[in-house]
């Protein structure tokens, strides 16, 4: 990617700075409101990742990599899957079947709530990490 001189694209830079927090916030909203409204881990992960991708497009790969280094991404990818699978393992240890969220709390309703929360968070983390890594992979010339 060509690195633009600082003076140019001032509008884009300012708008991006303004937008990024809102994009992140909206991602979190889609993530955590997913069990009441439209949304869920996958969509939230993509939205969350677009914030980083937008930042990378405007401010360059170097600065984005400082914010979110590839080594951290690798951890996050594995962590998300582990969170998902770990929820399954926990439900099995608590005496339910795989991913039987009823086993997670005394009240099955709460159990379902906690279970889907953890699983969707896992999905969201992994999707964010994978999307940003894909962007890094394509954007960095190697």
């Amino acid at each position, binding site marked *: 990617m060509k690195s633009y001189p600082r003076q140019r694209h001032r509008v884009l830079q300012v708008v991006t700075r303004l937008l990024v927090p809102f994009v992140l916030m909206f991602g979190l909203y889609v993530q955590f409101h997913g069990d009441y409204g439209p949304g869920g881990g996958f969509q939230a992960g993509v939205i969350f990742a677009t914030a980083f991708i937008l930042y990378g497009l405007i401010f360059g790969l170097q600065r984005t990599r400082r914010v979110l280094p590839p080594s951290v991404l690798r951890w996050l*990818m594995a962590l998300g899957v582990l969170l998902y699978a770990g929820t399954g393992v926990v439900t099995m240890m608590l005496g339910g*079947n*795989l991913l039987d969220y009823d086993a997670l709390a005394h009240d099955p309703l709460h159990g379902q709530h906690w279970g889907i929360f953890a699983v969707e968070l896992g999905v969201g983390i992994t999707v964010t990490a994978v999307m940003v890594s894909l962007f890094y992979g394509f954007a960095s010339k190697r």
Partner: protein
Amino acid sequence: MMDQLPALQVMLPLVGAPLIILLRHPVWSWAFATLVSVLTFLVSVALLLQVSDGSIIRYSIGGWEAPTGIEFYIDQVNAGVALLVSGISTVVLVYAYESIKRSLDSSRHYLFYCGWLLCITGLIGIVITGDAFNVFVFLEISSLSTYMLIAFGSDRRALVASFRYLVLGSVGASFILIGIGFLYAATGTLNMVDLAARIPDTESPRAVLVAFSFLTVGLLIKAAIFPLHGWLLNAYHHAPVAVTAFLAGTATKVSLYVLVRLFFSVFGTEYSFGQLFLNWVLLPAAVAAFLSMSLVAIYQTDLRRMLAYSSVAQIGYIVTGISLATQTGLTAAVVHIFNHGMVKTTLFMAVGCILYRTGHAHIPSLDRLMSRMPFTSTAFILAGLGLIGVPLTAGFVSKFTLISALIEQGWGIAAGLILLSSVMAVAYIGRVIYLILFRESRGPAVSNEGYREVPISMLVPMYSLLALSLYFGIFGGQSLSLAGSAAETLLRGYP
């Protein structure tokens, strides 16, 4: 604990894979992957023991009962295939350590073993799930990790081979997904037992027909059945040889299992073979496969490529058995899935040993290998005889059953063509055996005097698999009776 085994079968490698990413150490990640694979294997053994009396395990994920939720459905047929996958994975993983250490940069070992575990997750998931859409999900898991594993080949052509497989594999997977979509539209269910019950009295038989066609073509691609086998040759040739050994024994076999499961259990034998004449699609393809591919294999100069062609030919034998849709034919197909899995994996492991010492698998430079690498050569020769189908080897049991099944149906010509193809197998394996045993090097002397035998950690897994295949050759009755009851289960359909 025992009733959680079906979930553990998939969850063990699935949890293992991200842990390896966190582990990152080359040796420890190998050790951990092997441990996980051994545990998975033990779970498969326990599951097979539980269903060996003909009972069925139905495990509903999330506690949602079957037609609503997703279930694992385990009977004799798929418990056996899961055992094949986890067993071959374990054996080849033990073998892979030395082979991968030499061919792959140690900073990437953990990615390799992570991909391996994901691949087992996908393959075993495809096998034991009872939900049609879940088949697609696990198929994607196994396919994506397979593309990754193939791309680890030391040659740059591995990337092209992997990409080619990616394109064709994605086409196949999309076809399967479209097929599943039509089935869902026609019946309103995704559970395979439920599908089998609802397909006969669906209101839109044409949608079922379209689903059937899409699924057939998609699975023909994934199982590398003759005209659609193009991806397999380069993939087997350029992948790391441990990956080839693993895939040759499992990946196409799992696709064949899905094919058999859909045709016989879900759509029903009567629908697939009675109304739709599937046998007239499969049989010509199968015959063309084993004739043409055996012929082409004779002219190959690279050992891996020769065995890849031979794999397509052997898949032809299995499909011949399937296309008969009789008890004996299906028994032959099931038993050949296992026997060929073991034999071909052993052969590729032997090729890996040769590559480990010589760095290439060029057939003309193999001469007098016996004097330099006696154990590897012996393993190759014995497994090669099994591939031909010499009596007292596993290949004989399955070929004999297949030929008797064909004669039983009055298809003597096809039986004759199988014998012809076996003669070609004698030609291409015999040529290599002759070189290994007898021929003195002519022409420019190849400077390969100093070859030693490969490390013991490569020989032991190779010989254990070889011993197993010889065992099933000598005591063929056992495997035949197991395959027979599996075939019976398939022909009967879901209870």
